[in-house]
Structures are given as C-alpha cells and as structure tokens.
C-alpha cells in the first residue's frame, strides 16, 4: 500500500509557494497606494527607504505555503494504492455481497434451504483478504452482515434468513450492494444473487449503477418444473339487512395458474378460526372461478374471516383474510316545525329509509326546540324548514363542535337566531322567486367535495334536471365553502366547519314545492352522501396488503381499518399501544406526540390493544400477501445480469487490463476522496492566515513596517 496521485501533474502547482515570498519581497511596501495632490513637500523631506528584504513573520509565510501545497495536492487527487495487495491472492481481494431472496415464493420446495447452503458455500470460498456482506431482500433489503471477513458472523447471519410475506423487488437489494461496493476499498466486487428470478421483481429501470470492476453472479434457485398454483385473490363482502339483521354474503375469487388437467379445489370459509362452510370448485388450467358462500349474520364486531384452499407448493396465497364488523346505522335526527304539514319531510325521510344495509337510523322531532336529549347519540341533524330558537342554536353549536353535522334546509318558515349567526356559513338575505321560464337550475357543483365526488363521473347522477322556483339569497362568509350554486351564481349549498363538525345550509327546501330535486333520481344518493358526510362515516377496509403502514395515532386511519369513530378516537388517544403480529411477536407503540406507524409486513391478523388489557373483541386488522408474488413467471438470469451490468461496464466493451487498472486507480481514489479533506484543511489554513495577518496589521497600526510573508 503506497501513496499515489491520480493526476500528479497538478503537483507542479506546489511551485506556487514562491509567489507569496516574491510578492512579499517585491511589492510589500506598495500594497497600499495613497493618491496625494502633490509630492512637492514630501520629496523635500530626507527619506531613506528601509531595507525590507527580510522575512519577519515566518509563521504566516508557512501557513500560506502549506495551504498552497495542500491545494496542489488536492488537485493531484491522492489515494492509497492498494492494488499491490491483490498479488497476495489469486485475483486480488474481493468485496463479496450475497443477496438472498426472502419473498414468499422462496417457500416453494426447499428453495430457502438451498439459498442458505449456497450462501455458506460462497462464504467458505472467501480468500484471506476478502470481505463479504449478506443482504436479505424481498420488497425491501436488510443487511444481515456488512463487509466482514468473520466467517462465524456470516454463518450466524445466514441462519437468520427467513421467508417473508412480501413480494420480490431486486432494485432495493442491488442498490444496497452498490452502496457496499462503493464504500469498499477492495479492488474488485462480486454480487451473488440467490433468488428464483421472478419477472415481477425487476422493472428494468431501477437506477442501479454498480461500480466499475464489479460483477453480478446469478444463482438460480427456482424449481425446474412449472408450478401449478391455485390462489384466493379476492373476497367480496356485500351486506344486506334481512329482518332487521345484517347479513353478509362472502364471495371468493379463486384463480389457478399453470396445471395441465382440470382440478377440484375445496374452498373453506372460516370465521373466528372456526370452519363454517366448504364448497368445491372446479378449475381448468389457467382459469378462475367465483365461490359464493351462504349468507352469514353479523353479530359481533371485529369478526375474523378467512377463505382457505388446501395447501399447494405456494401456500401463502392459499388463504385470504378479512375482518368484518356489524354495520353501525348512523343515527340521523330530522327536525320539523311543530305546525308543519306532516309530509314536510316525506322525501327526506323516505330517502334515508331506503338502503339495503340499513345504514341510517332516522328519528324525527316535530318541535322548533331541540333538547339535549334529542342530540344524544345522533351523528347528523337535518333542520327541515325550522325556526330555530337561541337555546337550540347554542345546543347545536356544542353538538357541531363535538363532531356532529347539521344540515339546514331553508323553507318558508325557516329562521335562525342572530345570536348564533356565526354558526351558519353566511348571512341569509331575501327570498327570491325564479318564475321566469322553467325556473332556475344548479349551475355549479364542487365535485371534489366528498358530498358530490361520487357524482363526478359520467352517468353518475344528473343534478341538471332539477328545477328551482324559489330560494333564499345567501351572502357567504369568508371562511365558508361553496358546494353548489344556482345558474345565476347565487349560493345553493354552503358549508362552514366548526370544531370537529360542520354545518351545511341548503338555501331551498327539501320538499317538492320550491324545487323538484326530491323527484329526481339523484335525490336519494345525494341525501345519503349528505347524511354520511355530516355523520363523519368512513368506509371500513376489510383487509390490508403486506407492505402497507397504518398510523395508529390517526383516528381516521383507525376508522378506515374498521373501528367505529368513538372506538377509534379512544384508541388513538395518547396512550401506549401494543400490536400482536400474526407470527406471535409484539410491537410496542408507546404514546408520543407524533404518528405511531405500524408496518404490516406479515400476512394474517394483527391485533392492537392497550398494554395489560385483554378485551373480549380486540381491534383486529387482516393483512393479505401481495399477490404479485404469486405470478411465478421468471426472467432469464443472464438477461437480468446483463441489464444490471450494462449500466456499469464501459460502452466500448470489455476493458483492457491497463484500462482496468486505471479504473481501479480511479475507483480507489473516488472511494477514498482524500482531496475533499485536503481542500477543507487548506481552507482552514487560509482563514487562519487571514485572521493572523489582520491581527498583526492592527497590532502594527500606523507604525512602520509591514507584514512579512
């Protein structure tokens, strides 16, 4: 190992150290020139120039010279040439990186065991100066052992390799290998890729740039024969209310890839670990079928369900998990004026009452006064043409700030107290008739708003057919959002948020007198969306896919995961949580200010609870494997290697030995990068020199003499 320079020509720059000396000896006295009107008097004064050919401040001169030497040396790109060490081994010391596929397709046969054996064989073949790393990868990559020559440690790392539930991604693993090789000081690098080479794991543009001089050695581990793989890809869970009880009819989609002959497959439905139903499906090669089970009645929350088929070569995709909870009907309160006609809410009540799954529980109060008991347990309130008094408005304010939603439909007898005017999204003005022609229409809808987003697509609901003959004018507040406008630009539907809740004002009525919206087909989904939005209802996700992450501090995320809003808010509070993994392990999620992310890496059921508690029906999330891995189509290992190495090899083919040595020298210099440190030190010296010379200059003041050096 010796010190060498990549561009030694720059060392000529060291000759520059004579510059400060020459400058000092020749120009020092004239560094400050003062323009003066006339030297008439100065020339008359007897003056004898001091002999200043003597260097006074050797320290300053040394600083300057040393800084220049460092700059010149930095440009010459110094490095420690370790290539001579290569002569000790057969091909020089190597940096070996072993990448082992841990995706769940490696569970087929003895692929994982073979991978371990191959890794150990590679490690046994290491030379005395070689170093090796072990990286397990699937969707991501984990370094089990990094750049070591300790065989014991490497073998221990091999023993930790396990099959995961994730799919194959070659990119992250190769980038880890690239980083290890770039950081290495050894002259050559080898990357062993131990995998079954699934085509889905390589997109072809992963941005991998292995350092020059390194090579990829594929070690295929896939089965020699084609695999006949059957998998459960999806389960649909439609709900229906039958005799006041909620029933779910699971339908599983079963797919078969490969095979030569038709095959019978028994598909089993399990609920809470108990086998409930079984059906036999007949599958042709490369075909799919749907298996519908008998309806089941949901009675308990967080019911764990699994659709299972018998084990085959690839077992992970033979089960599909889901979680079901009984649908919670959203309590909706309709408030009417006491003297209003009995059918004033006919259409509204009818729309809320029509649903397969009984998603709304409608209550009606015929009084302008709203009592606190009326609002208990209610998610959304529809004020249909009601003259609200001040006390009721304040109760509604508290209701909204705590997360409730209020819909105010203005009509002939509607009114709102001035004391609570800030609760509305605007100021109610005059009533206006639109009797010209065929009345007014809705001219603008905010399709990005949750109420209208389901109507955004073509043939997803037509609001333009509705005619409006009378409406109240509204001057919207600055903080209000306008959800809909009439064709003359006036406000039809406006929203204002208060606390955790929201207030929506509809400037026309919900009956068929002021408009005929209630007679349009779009009225029913419109009212449903309104009620769901006001009640803050979120669609629950029955399962997740491996690789997803859930923030357990976010009530919305928990609600999406299947918790009702009150439970979600309770669990997300700043209290400790613990998650039990499908494999039996636990993850502690201590309370804190920030998010609490739970990575869903295993397929199965994740249970989340507070430490020390054992609830009867704990919160459960179902996680299924990424089905991309079930596609066992393969990529040719040599093709993959060529694609990886194409970005690293010179464009004009295999480099000659001399070029290779040059590449190695450049590679060594790039890895060591001493020039950066030299420049930093030189910069520091220049700064020190400036400080010292200024100090000396100030010290000297107006006295004779200058700064030496």
């Amino acid at each position: 190992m010796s010190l060498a320079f990549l561009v030694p020509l720059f060392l000529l720059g060291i000759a520059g150290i004579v510059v400060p000396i020459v400058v000092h000896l020749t120009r020092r006295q004239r560094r400050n020139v003062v323009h003066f009107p006339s030297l008439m008097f100065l020339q008359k004064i007897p003056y004898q120039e001091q002999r200043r050919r003597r260097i006074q401040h050797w320290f300053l001169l040394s600083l300057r010279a040393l800084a220049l030497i460092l700059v010149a040396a930095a440009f010459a790109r110094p490095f420690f040439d370790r290539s001579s060490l290569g002569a000790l081994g057969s091909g020089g010391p190597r940096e070996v990186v072993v990448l082992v596929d841990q995706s769940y397709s490696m569970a087929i046969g003895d692929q994982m065991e073979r991978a371990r054996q191959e890794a150990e064989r590679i490690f046994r073949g290491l030379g005395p100066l070689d170093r090796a790393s072990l990286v397990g990868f699937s969707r991501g990559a984990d370094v089990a052992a990094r750049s070591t020559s300790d065989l014991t440690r490497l073998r221990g790392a091999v023993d930790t390799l396990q099959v995961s539930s994730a799919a194959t991604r070659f990119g992250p693993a190769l980038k880890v290998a690239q980083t290890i090789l770039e950081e290495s000081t050894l002259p050559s690098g080898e990357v062993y890729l131990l995998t079954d080479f699934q085509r889905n794991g390589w997109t072809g543009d992963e941005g991998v740039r292995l350092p020059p001089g390194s090579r990829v050695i594929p070690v295929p581990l896939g089965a020699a024969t084609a695999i006949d793989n059957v998998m459960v890809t999806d389960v649909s869970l439609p709900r229906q209310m039958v005799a006041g009880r909620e029933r779910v009819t699971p339908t599983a989609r079963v797919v078969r890839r490969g095979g030569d002959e038709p095959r019978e497959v028994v598909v089993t439905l399990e609920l809470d670990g108990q086998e409930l139903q079984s059906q036999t499906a007949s599958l042709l090669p490369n075909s799919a079928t749907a298996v519908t089970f008998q309806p089941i009645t949901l009675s308990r929350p967080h019911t764990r369900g699994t659709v299972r088929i018998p084990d085959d070569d690839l077992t992970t995709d033979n089960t599909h998990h889901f979680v079901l909870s009984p649908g919670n009907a959203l309590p909706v309160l309709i408030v009417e004026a006491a003297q209003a006609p009995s059918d004033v809410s006919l259409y509204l009540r009818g729309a809320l009452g029509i649903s397969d799954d009984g998603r709304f529980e409608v209550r009606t109060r015929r009084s302008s006064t709203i009592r606190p008991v009326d609002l208990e347990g209610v998610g959304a309130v529809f004020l249909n043409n009601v003259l609200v008094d001040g006390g009721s408005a304040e109760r509604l304010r508290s209701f909204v700030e705590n997360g409730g939603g209020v819909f105010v439909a203005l009509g002939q007898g509607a009114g709102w107290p001035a004391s609570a005017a800030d609760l509305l999204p605007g100021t109610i003005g005059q009533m206006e008739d639109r009797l010209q022609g065929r009345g007014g229409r809705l001219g603008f809808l905010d399709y990005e708003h949750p109420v209208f987003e389901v109507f955004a697509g073509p043939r997803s609901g037509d609001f333009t057919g509705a005619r409006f003959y009378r409406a109240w004018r509204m001057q919207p507040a600055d903080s209000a959002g306008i959800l809909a406008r009439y064709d003359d630009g006036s406000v039809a539907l406006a929203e204002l948020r208060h606390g955790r809740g929201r207030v929506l004002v509809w400037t026309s009525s919900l009956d068929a007198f002021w408009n005929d919206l209630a007679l349009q087909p779009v009225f029913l989904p419109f009212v449903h969306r309104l009620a769901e939005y006001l009640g803050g209802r979120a669609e629950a996700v029955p399962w997740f896919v491996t690789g997803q992450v859930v923030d357990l501090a976010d009530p919305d995320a928990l609600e999406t995961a299947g918790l009702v809003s009150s439970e979600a808010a309770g669990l997300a509070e700043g209290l400790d949580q613990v998650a039990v993994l499908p494999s039996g392990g636990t993850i502690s999620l201590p309370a804190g200010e920030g998010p609490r992310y739970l990575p869903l890496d295993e397929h199965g059921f994740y249970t989340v609870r507070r430490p020390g508690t054992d609830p009867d029906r704990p919160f459960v999330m179902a996680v299924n494997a990424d089905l991309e891995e079930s596609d066992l189509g393969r990529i040719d290992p040599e093709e993959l290697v060529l694609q990886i190495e194409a970005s690293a090899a010179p464009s004009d083919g295999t480099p000659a030995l001399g070029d290779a040595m040059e590449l190695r020298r450049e590679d060594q210099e790039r890895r060591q990068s001493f020039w950066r440190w030299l420049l930093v030190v030189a910069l520091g010296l220049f700064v020190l020199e400036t400080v010292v010379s200024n100090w000396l200059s100030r010290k000297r003041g107006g006295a004779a003499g200058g700064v030496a050096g």
Partner: protein
Amino acid sequence: MAAPRSSTAAGTQFLDPAVLGRIANLELLARTVVDGFLTGLHRSPYLGFSMDFAEHRPYMPGDDIRRIDWRLFARTDRHYIKLFEADTNANFSVLLDLSASMSYGSHSLAKIDYARYLAACLIYFSNKQRDRVGLVTFDHEIVDYVPPSMKHLDTILHRLDQAEAGRPGTLAGPLLKITEMLGRKGILVVVSDFYEEPDAVLSAIAPLRARGHDVIVFHVMDPYELDFPFEEASGFEDLETGEQIPVIPGKLKGDYMALMKTHLDTLQQRFTENQIDYTLLNTAEPLDMALFQYLLARERMSKAR
C-alpha cells in the same frame, strides 16, 4: 476622490439657497454703506466722468477741450484736465485652476468641487449686482474662456458644471496668457491649490495686479493636506505626475507640517506685499465663510480707493 456630480440642470447645484441667503444679507449690509446704489457696491477702478472729482492732470494734445478746467487755468495760467471717478459695473472674472491636484478630496467634497461651488457663488452674486462676469479655467494651458459679460451667467455656470480636473498644471503660462487676454481692468479671483514655489506663484499672479486688476486669491486645501493625518505606511502617488514614493507618515508628518506651514506663511506674506487679498480655504469648512471673506475684501477695496 471627486465628489459625485448631481444630475440636475447645469449650474443649479451651485446656487444653494442657504448659502445665497447668507450672501444676500451681506449685500444688504454693503448697500447700506454705499447709500443703496447697486452699481456703487463696487467702486470701479476706472476713472471716468461722473460727479465725483478725482484729480487733475496736465492737458495733452488730443484731449477734449471741454474737459479743461478753466477756473484752474484762470488761477495758474496752465491747462489742466479735470478727471472724475466713475461708478460703473465692474468686470468680474474667476480664474479657476483645473490641475489634477485639484481633484483630491479626503471626504465627500473634492477640492475642485469646492472651488467650482465657490466660483459659481461669486459669479452669481456678482452678476446679481450687475457686474459683468467671466470665467477662465486653466491647467498647464487655458482650458476654457468665457469673456466678461452681463449675459454670460448661464454659460459660465454650465462651463463650471462641465469643468473637470485631471491634467498637470502650472500657473505661469496660463496666467500670462490671461493677463494678455483681459484688456479691461476688473476684479480677478484666482482659485487654486498653489502647488508651486511661492516665488513662482507670485511671478505668475503679480502681472495681473500690475495690469491694474484687483486680484483676490483663494487657496483651496483639503484638511488631509493641512493636517496630514495618515498613519499606515503607504506608497504616495502624485496626482499630477504619477510618481510614487514610499512614505511612513509617522516619521514624515512633522517635517511635512513644517514645510506646509512655511509654504502657507510665505504665500500669505508675498501676496500681502503685492496688495493681493489672500484667503486660505479648508474644504471641510462651510463655503459661505469664503464668500464672507470675499465681501469683506471687496468692501476694504472700496474704502481704500
């Protein structure tokens, strides 16, 4: 070193209302002395015809016989011509030195700027009292010449605005030419930094006085020239010759100050001997002080005549 020029119209920068306000008060004072006659503020050095008798001189052939004092002839039996003093408007010219040394300025105002302001104020003031005003700028030769006239104020202010110091200068050559150019006697104000030996300066200016002009000399100096407050050892470069010499101010200051004092004292003495008003102006001091000195000098001239 030179002060930045303003972008205002030519000449207007010189007419500082505050300065002119002070001068206006002095003019009122002068008017009181000479019975409020504007034309009488300056007594003309010319002898002419007026009600104020001056002297008699023997009749020479060719003199107008109407000017013979017959009463004196009756008493003395000799012909004498009666001469009177005339109060006429004077010729007032400023001789401004544009040598490169005038471009020096240790602060915001260079000597040349100070000199230009001074010249502009004097010319404006003189023109206001109906003097004919003129301007001569010079370095080692005549750079610009505006003959005295009642109508040349704007031209002079414009030329002053354009005047720049930048070339080497001497006094003898240009002033000799000026002596020849200015035929009619008048008031001459010489503004310079006089970086020449006192004898050379006097030999250049004395002919003007000998021609009968009233000469007023303003010696414009920068405070750094007078006090030499430099500290750092530096190379000093002559603005006119470009010559450089190494200077250690701490060692040379005493000698420099002594030489400068000798120079100034000598100039003061030699100008006084030649009946030339001499005023040393420091560019760090207000300009109106110089104008005040000028008016005092003019008043003194008027009384002395």
